[in-house]
Structures are given as C-alpha cells and as structure tokens.
C-alpha cells in the first residue's frame, strides 16, 4: 500500500485532551486506591507485629505514625480505604444490574468521592477529639 496517507477524518480525542467524565475518573481512582492500600498493608502488618513484639517496638512504630510523615500516610490510607470501599459498593450495585442511567452514574460517582472525603475528615475529627487534642 504505497502512498497511504493519514486519515483526514476526525480522530477520537486522546486522554490528555479529553474532559474526563466523573465515572471515568472514579474508575481509575478505584484502581489507584487499591494499589495504595496494597502497599499500605505493610503499615498495618508493622503495627500488629510491633504491638505483639513489645513496648519498645510499639514505641518505635508510634514515633513513626505520629510524625508528620506517618500522619500523612495514615490520612492517605484512611481516604484510600474509604474511597475503595464506597467505590466497591458502587461496583456491586452495577454488578447487580442497577444504576446504569446517565444521572445514576453521575450521582453514584459523585457520592463516592464526596462520601470518601467527607467520611475521612469526619473520622480524623473524631480521632483527634477522642485523643483529647493531645499529640
């Protein structure tokens, strides 16, 4: 096929110039939060092993998790966990065959992100209040 030219018809927009619909953003966020939680299990394992090992290991873990970096990791883990849970519920609703209309897709996606951020902030407020504002 000598001399074949590039098609002049419009090409479908690629990801960089595509205005992401919310359900699409939620789809990749579900995978990203899942990947983050995967790594985050190391923190959970460290926490449990440190508690089982004794006061010294527990104090070492405490120093890490109460540092600004540890708090950042824990905050991210909280949000990722709640986002992945709410996103999972959305997927289960879709698996059951419901929620596929335009408005329902938008609503479910918005509820996932608003719900995960809202619940994360609420949990951290409760967390800090339950510790009496210390730390």
């Amino acid at each position, binding site marked *: 096929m000598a001399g074949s030219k590039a098609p002049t018809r419009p090409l479908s927009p690629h990801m960089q110039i595509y205005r992401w619909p919310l359900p699409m953003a939620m789809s990749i966020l579900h995978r990203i939060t899942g990947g983050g939680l*995967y790594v985050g299990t190391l923190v959970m394992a460290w926490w449990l092993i440190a508690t*089982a090992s*004794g006061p010294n290991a527990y*104090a070492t873990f405490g120093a890490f998790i109460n540092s600004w970096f540890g708090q950042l990791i824990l905050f991210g883990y909280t949000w990722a966990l709640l986002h992945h849970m709410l996103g999972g519920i959305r997927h289960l609703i879709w698996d059951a065959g419901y929620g596929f209309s335009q408005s329902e897709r938008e609503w479910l996606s918005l509820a996932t992100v608003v719900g995960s951020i809202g619940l994360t902030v609420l*949990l951290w407020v409760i967390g800090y209040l339950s510790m009496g504002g210390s*730390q």
Partner: protein
Amino acid sequence: MTEHRTPLARVRGLGSAKSGTTHFWHQRLTSVAGVPLTIAFVLIVVALLGRNHAAAQQILASPLVAIVMLLFIGSTTYHMCIGMQVIIEDYVHDEIPKLTLIMLNIFFSVAVALASAYAIFKLSFGV
C-alpha cells in the same frame, strides 16, 4: 458427540485456562465481606488511637477484636492479591516479567497475611 471447537483451536491445542470466573467471583465475595469488616477495622483502629502498649495489647487480644481482625486480614489480603494480579495482567504482557510479578505478588500477599495473623495469634495466646 459433535465437535464444538474450531479447527484452529484444535490445531493449537490450547483450551480454556481451566479456572473460568473463579477470581471474578472471589473478588466479589471478598468485597461484600470487606464492607462490614473494613468498618469494623476502622472502628478498632479509632479505639486504639493514642493507647499505650499495655492497653493496645489488651484490646487486640480480646476474642471479638482478634477474630474480626483475622477475618479482615484474610479477606483483604486475598482480595488485594487477586486484584493486583488483574493489574499486572492488564499492563505487563511479556510472559517472563508477567509470571515473575504474579509470583512476587502472591509471595507478598501471603507474607503480609501470615505476618499479620501471626501477630494477632501471638497477642491472643501470649506465647
């Protein structure tokens, strides 16, 4: 009996992967289990915030908390193992790197599961 396979499939000798929708089904099963277990896990962590070692040890060793933690660990590490396998299969296409990553994924998931469960058992039985 009628031959249902296409001639091409017969020549290649490749059948199904023999596992069908097992992972798909297990992913849903552990996600349904994961909802109440995750809520329970979050509540346990909140209850443990700022506790000293003795208190944390005591709470994690109480039967209900320990059992819920074990269920959470088991369900979650299996869920993340088959979830990560899907990600690997989606993005890594060369056979050797793909198989290597799938193996490392299973090693990691099993190690995290076993280490976490061991800690809970040690806290509960105090050996």
